[in-house]
């Protein structure tokens, strides 16, 4: 009698939950850090864009093959050298149901050009944008821009009406720690909308019913982003089935996950180079002990370069999953050559001699700033560097902290010696020079300044003759490589792990596109 009761209850439960089990599935996604802000123009940072990309869309976008294709714009053409005409899709609605018009596009591009935007460098050549009619936008550039489409693929389109209602006309001033509604809520035209946002804990993406496109697999209706900072915990969560996809598997655990019959691992060369920056602009190091700035001397920079045993880092810290780098860009980017990517040899004796010749026979002291939740094994790389530089007498004090603080303090110009990684979303060298090498550029925290490089950057922006443009890129790379303005370390290799029946296509820019996700 009692037994029958139990069966009935069980059956009721089964019937109640069975349908949701078969038709709607949640993908639980984890990585070590979280998006810094939901405001799509406030922070130009990997995981932040990864989250925004699920919710917001741009005029054009890169598909799974990394080629530029239409998104909100269906077609485009140039009218003369400086004018572009974009035709918009007419069936696009924001997730609250309001239709997208050219007014929203004009508003968003102007928004991304404001002072507080971190994307203003992307579209610095855009001089005017206007709505021709409801579904046509005209963009004018200050000079011919061969890479405008690449740049626009990262400018997300917001709703003008929503921004006005929510006091979000200007991008959040992230560097000043401003809190805005747009930083915690999102309204986009993309395949998902965010229904719950707890920074660093949980973000829930539900399918946007108004989305114009087709999901690859209709069963994918919800994505949960659950950041787990500790590597071992993240892997344990994956292995126990609590998490479905991890987009930054710790390299030391790949073998363990591969051995699990219920999981699979995919690896690909990532479009990201890890390097160390040394402030050459300051007259005196903030954390130094010599009273001057040793980094001003090229010999010192070269000594540090040659003291780093990158092969040991590759073998022991990265477990073989990295490609030692000679420049801060990677294969596939316009301007990259194998020749440029060669490193100076690892040579401790030569490094010691360089340091002594430069006037620091006993070395010096400096603090190395590192993120501890951004790049693959970032803190471990820095710890290894501390030991290697110690061997030539440079006493490095490691200061590792969470990425949001690391980046903020770096932009505040607080770092003497720091780690940074750089991806190239536009797949053109110009992006690297524009952010890292141009005099006064926002991420040029080494305070590098060279008029020849600046001139070459102007050529990259305005030259439509590709041969001349590529010559300028090659020339600029040669100058900065010879100057050793940064210490390149390696190109990252990323690995994603997932349950066997969950397919999220891996992409070299480490951005998952959940609209292409599917279940077996």
């Amino acid at each position, binding site marked *: 009698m009692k037994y029958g009761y139990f069966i009935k209850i069980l059956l009721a439960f089964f019937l109640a939950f069975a349908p949701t089990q078969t038709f709607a599935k949640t993908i639980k996604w984890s990585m070590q850090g979280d998006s810094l802000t939901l405001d799509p123009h406030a922070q130009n940072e990997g995981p932040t864009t990864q989250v925004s990309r699920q919710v917001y869309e741009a005029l054009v976008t890169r598909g799974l093959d990394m080629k530029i294709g239409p998104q909100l714009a269906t077609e485009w053409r140039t009218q003369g050298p400086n004018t572009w005409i974009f035709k918009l899709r007419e069936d696009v609605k924001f997730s609250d149901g309001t239709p997208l018009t050219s007014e929203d596009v004009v508003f968003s591009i102007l928004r991304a050009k404001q002072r507080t935007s971190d994307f203003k460098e992307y579209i610095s050549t855009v001089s005017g944008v206007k709505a021709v009619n409801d579904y046509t936008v005209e963009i004018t550039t200050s000079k011919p821009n061969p890479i405008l489409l690449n740049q626009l693929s990262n400018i997300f389109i917001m709703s003008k009406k929503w921004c006005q209602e929510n006091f979000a006309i200007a991008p959040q001033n992230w560097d000043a720690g401003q809190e805005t509604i747009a930083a915690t809520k999102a309204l986009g035209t993309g395949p998902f909308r965010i229904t719950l946002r707890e920074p660093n804990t949980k973000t829930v993406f539900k399918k946007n019913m108004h989305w114009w496109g087709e999901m690859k697999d209709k069963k994918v209706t919800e994505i949960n982003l659950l950041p787990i900072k500790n590597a*071992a915990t993240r*892997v344990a969560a994956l292995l126990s089935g609590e998490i479905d996809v991890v987009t930054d598997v710790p390299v*030391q*655990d790949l073998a363990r996950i591969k051995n699990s019959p219920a999981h699979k691992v995919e690896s690909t060369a990532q479009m990201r180079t890890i390097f160390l920056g040394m402030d050459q602009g300051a007259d005196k190091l903030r954390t130094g002990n010599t009273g001057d700035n040793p980094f001003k001397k090229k010999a010192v920079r070269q000594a540090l370069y040659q003291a780093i045993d990158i092969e040991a880092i590759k073998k*022991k810290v990265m477990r073989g999953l990295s490609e030692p780098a000679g420049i801060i860009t990677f294969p596939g980017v316009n301007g990259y050559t194998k020749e440029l990517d060669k490193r100076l040899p690892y040579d401790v004796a030569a490094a010691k001699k360089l340091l002594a010749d430069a006037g620091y026979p006993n070395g010096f002291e400096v603090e190395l700033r590192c993120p501890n939740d951004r790049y693959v094994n970032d803190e*471990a790389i820095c710890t290894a560097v501390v030991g290697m530089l110690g*061997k030539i007498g440079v006493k490095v004090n490691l200061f590792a902290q969470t990425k949001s603080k690391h980046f903020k303090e770096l932009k505040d110009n607080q770092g003497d010696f720091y780690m940074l990684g750089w991806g190239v979303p536009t797949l053109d060298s110009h992006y690297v020079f524009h952010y890292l090498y141009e005099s006064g550029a926002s991420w040029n925290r080494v305070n590098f300044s060279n008029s020849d490089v600046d001139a070459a950057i102007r050529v990259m922006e305005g030259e439509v003759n590709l041969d001349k443009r590529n010559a300028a890129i090659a020339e600029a790379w040669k100058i900065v490589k010879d100057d050793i303005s940064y210490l390149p370390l390696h190109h990252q290799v990323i690995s994603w792990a997932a349950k066997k029946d969950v397919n999220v296509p891996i992409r070299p820019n480490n951005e998952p596109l959940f609209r292409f996700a599917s279940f077996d």
Partner: protein
Amino acid sequence: MDDKGLTIWDKIKDSEIYFSFIKSPTAIVSSILLAIIFFCSFFVEFITPYNPFDPSSLSLMDAFTPPSWTSEGKVEFLLGTDGQGRDMLSTILYGSRISLIVGFSAILFSLILGVGLGLTAGFFGGKYEMIVMRLTDVQLTVPSILMALLVDGIARGIISRELHDEMAIYVLIFAIGISEWPQFARVSRAATLVEKNKDYVSASIIIGVSNFIVIFKHILPNIMRPVLVIGTIGLALAIIAEATLSFLGVGVPPTTPSLGTLIRLGNDFLFSGEWWITFFPAIFLVILAFSINLLGDWMRDTLNPKLKK
């Protein structure tokens, strides 16, 4: 004066404690273990050729060497190396010195604070006693690890970052010490209440000995037995508290790791088969805490006449 010819050693041999000690194998084993650990930790410079706290002496290529008895192990690294190429054995010994220093200092700090407050509260009574005892009640409701976390968090807020790494060890001592004192206060107050009504105390007060002398010369030596017992057991707790805080990442910095920091750092490699990085510090911590606890148990049995058979 018939024991004038006897040496101190003879006196110890003749004592009740010594008798109880040689009759208790657990006490002998645990004190031998502790003696070895203490010796190795405090004279580690003379025992191992490595200094794991000096990053420039490390070679990254030595990283992840397994213990010497496995097929890939090397003889020079008995217990293997960690992810930075530090020799595990010397890192553990250097680390246990930090753990022991923090544990001892913290327990000494809470002992002085707790006994000072408890003894005076028991002796003087009145409103002062009430305030002190309610204070201990309030603090006993807060778990000691939370209290330590709170102190550490506040210290992080007020101490500048440059100083924090150097100050970390003192902050840790204070944090653990402040979270353990109520036990000492309670025990010493209870013992004082018993002692203060005894005739020898009344006699001293009647002949006009000052309160200060009565408290420290007459009462304090007589309440030390229970205090020493909880002090010994508290030492094990303090070492574990230090390991817990360091494991949570709020203790000593990874460049000068204690046992807890070592366990935390090794935790990342647990899945990848490099078990020795976390296993050896953990087992070392267990042996250390277990030996202290056994010794504490033996002391309680010996020093408390009521528990004697």
